């Protein structure tokens, strides 16, 4: 299974046509796949809260958005999640590279990893954790759930899911 293609196919099948990204090495393949798809307008953002603003506007303009980012961005975007996405009740699928988990080579990444789920729980954000490659089978249902509930939803994807970081 080509996981980057499978993820992008699920986004397209769910009508997602506006995707903003802040890169992570683990996400490089899926970002490239998204950039190559005619069905998706790919708009890189310089910071993740900016990206969430872009997504909010695109959704009000009639497009289904998504953001792709690293879990460190949870530290950047808490205010935006609470006062924009949740306060105005907007759907936002967040495909998140979950750095600092098993098979992580960079120690500093662990420092945000240990806070990631606690912060998402504190924000009452529905959170899914992809650890094995077959977990991606849930993505289609998670996307449907996101647009049904009009909420931000987090999909944490760790190094094991991506086939290892640095040892792949």
């Amino acid at each position: 299974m080509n996981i980057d293609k499978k993820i992008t196919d699920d986004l397209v099948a769910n009508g997602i046509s506006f995707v903003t990204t802040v890169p992570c090495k683990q996400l490089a393949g899926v970002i490239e796949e998204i950039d190559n798809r005619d069905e998706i307008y790919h708009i890189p953002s310089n910071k993740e809260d900016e990206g969430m603003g872009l997504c909010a506007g695109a959704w009000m303009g009639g497009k289904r958005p998504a953001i792709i980012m690293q879990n460190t961005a949870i530290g950047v975007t808490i205010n935006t999640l609470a006062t924009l996405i949740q306060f105005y009740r907007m759907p936002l699928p967040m495909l998140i590279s979950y750095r600092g988990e098993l098979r992580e080579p960079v120690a500093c990444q662990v420092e945000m990893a240990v806070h990631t789920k606690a912060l998402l729980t504190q924000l009452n954000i529905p959170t899914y954790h992809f650890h094995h490659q077959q977990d991606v089978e849930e993505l289609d249902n998670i996307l449907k759930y996101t647009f049904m509930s009009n909420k931000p939803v987090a999909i944490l994807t760790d190094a094991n899911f991506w086939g290892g970081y640095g040892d792949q």
Partner: protein
Amino acid sequence: MIRSEILREIAPILRDQLVVCNIGIPSQELHAIDDQPSNFYMLGTMGLASSIGLGLALAQPKPVVVIDGDGSVLTNLGTLPTIANNVADNYILMIIDNGSYGSTGDQPTYTGKKTSLAGIARAAGCENVVEVQDVDTGKALQDALDSGKMTVLVVKCDSGNAKMPLITMDPVVIRDRFMTEVAR
């Protein structure tokens, strides 16, 4: 002129556009002067008006006017390269540059000192950057709308706020009536 005097003058132009208005006193002033369902008022999240407006402009064809402030653009400076590189000709970013953080008590920003937002926008790659004085705002905004070109309009004006009531409308109501106007 202060911000509220400018908003009062351009209200007849704004009325027919989709407007994304910056957090705090700017939204309170616009709401009090001429509330419209086509106005999206930001009640929180400083800095993101320009980003919300860009996403909206890229997603649909109607003209979008963002009313932003110097302090808010400074807090989200990364927005200018994103705007420059994702051209939406139905997008106008109007920055009311009064050289101060108006909503928090008129503390000075750096745009009242050495920093030029028009210069930053040009360096970011924005192609149509216009800087005007407050009295010329209406003409400059109308020109930008008529041009059919993505425009960054920096309006230099005096610092100061009008005393206006808080917006008590529910955010979901603001958003829902706005989306109804977008889809109309």
